[in-house]
């Protein structure tokens, strides 16, 4: 069974440019999470989806970040415009349901470098 797929794995952009990350969760997983992992830190939740609905986006900086999960499967996270401080790893995770009993499976992440 394929795991959580993310692309690209690496992205280097100039500041003020837009960037987008894509996530394909494990088949059948209706809950999807985007986490931000700064260097030397643990991941922090940006947004959580139940199917196509964003049920927790309280930590998403909405002035420059946006996310969508139009058909309740794949998801895209966008930053526009990117700032130097956005350099980090962006992790996607999915689970069968949004409960503590359903393990969250993580993708390999996208490492973003903003120059």
């Amino acid at each position, binding site marked *: 069974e394929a795991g959580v797929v993310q692309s690209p794995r690496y992205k280097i952009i100039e500041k003020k440019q837009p960037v987008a990350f894509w996530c394909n969760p494990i088949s059948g997983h209706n809950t999807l999470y985007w986490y931000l992992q700064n260097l030397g830190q643990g*991941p922090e*939740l940006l947004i959580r989806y139940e199917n196509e609905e964003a049920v927790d986006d309280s930590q998403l900086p909405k002035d420059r970040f946006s996310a969508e999960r139009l058909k309740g499967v794949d998801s895209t996270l966008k930053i526009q415009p990117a700032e130097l401080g956005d350099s980090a790893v962006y992790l996607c995770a999915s689970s069968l349901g949004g409960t503590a009993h359903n393990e969250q499976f993580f993708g390999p992440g996208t490492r973003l470098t903003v120059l």
Partner: protein
Amino acid sequence: AQTVTQSQPEMSVQEAETVTLSCTYDTSENNYYLFWYKQPPSRQMILVIRQEAYKQQNATENRFSVNFQKAAKSFSLKISDSQLGDTAMYFCAFMNPYRGYALNFGKGTSLLVTP
């Protein structure tokens, strides 16, 4: 807000030996979940072990076991018979089921297993 503290940024252990990673957390909740995740250099986060706060029995998974001290708000991970493949970042995480199902991670402990 829940906070998770891992006081050991780096640890080293020889192959076949036992090592214990520390984690403390702060919460006013009585029902919650605790996790240990492993993040090898490839960056894919993997669940190692999970503990429900209402269970007194410490969780075990093969060579991995926890020492859960609810009153002390302590949740340490013991790795027995350490193997080279155990080399990774280890993150302690807290989940409050009454405030969504996001994982709140500590800063991690980098474990190096040496021959």
